[in-house]
């Protein structure tokens, strides 16, 4: 599977078919992979922040609803 992938990659017409070609491709692929790993980690971090924000928003909304209900209840008792 890996061999097939490597063979397919090195058979790409854009890469010169000499010894250097595969090393150049390898180096640039390593760079892109490193970037992708970083982006993936940052994506996970941002997802966690988003989850936290949603929780906080729910808490704030629940408190606001609770406070609104507390304000209307005495008025109902009075009438």
């Amino acid at each position, binding site marked *: 599977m890996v061999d097939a992938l490597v063979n397919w990659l090195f058979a790409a017409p854009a890469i*010169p078919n*000499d*010894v*250097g*070609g595969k*090393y*150049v491709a*390898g*180096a*640039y692929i*390593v*760079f892109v992979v*490193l970037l992708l790993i*970083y982006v993936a980690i*940052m994506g996970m*971090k*941002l997802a*966690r*922040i988003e989850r*936290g*924000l949603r*929780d*906080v928003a729910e*808490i*704030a909304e629940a*408190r606001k609803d609770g406070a609104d209900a507390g304000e209307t209840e005495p008025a109902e008792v009075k009438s």
Partner: protein
Amino acid sequence: MGAPPSMYGKGLRPLSIATPVAFAITLALVFFYAPIEADQGFLQKIFYLHVPLAIVALCGFIVGGIFAILHLRRDDARYDAYSYVAIHISVIFACGALITGSIWAKGSWGHWWVWNEPTLVSFLIVFLLYATYYPFRYAIEDRQRQARYASVFAITAGAFVPLNFMAVRLSASLVHPRVFATAEGGLPGSMMLTFLCSIASMALLWTTLVKFELSAKSAQGQLKRLRRALDAPTGPPTSRIAPEVH
């Protein structure tokens, strides 16, 4: 008391646009404009990736040291965060420089690593030195002390970087290629232009990632503050190593 939250994300949008544009131009120059080098052939194209990665990583370590000086002088936690993030991103770049350098060495010299080559070994020493930054920070519980000690580390290690660079330049090894200021005249114009574009792209990428990381840390800090203000559970514990940014 900290910086307004918008400060960290300021300029991130133009940087996020400029970085891929700069990389597209650089890659076009590398593969369609810069000539094939006579000695190494197509393999020399790694130079436009490996060397900028190494240079930007080393400069990033120095920048981390400068922020650490500012942190100690002004006692402002923001500079500790800048220093931490600068070192963090530079370690990733250094890791990339080591791997691409190793691939270049294999293609050029037939070995993944050459232990008697001072440039390689000294860069590895710098990388390993900064790799100890994380456990060093992690070992200290108190955040104030952690920030102070980490700053001292960043300054000492940051001062070591140019000394190390000079020592390597002064060494007499003929194995590692010397392309600047050589008796033969260094790089030809087209290669130099491509190389300078590579450096600029890499520096842009470094700056973008630093700002991106700082923005994420700031958002995390703001969320924590919000939770505290609402007396809500503080949620899953965040990293003890990373400084809190507000």
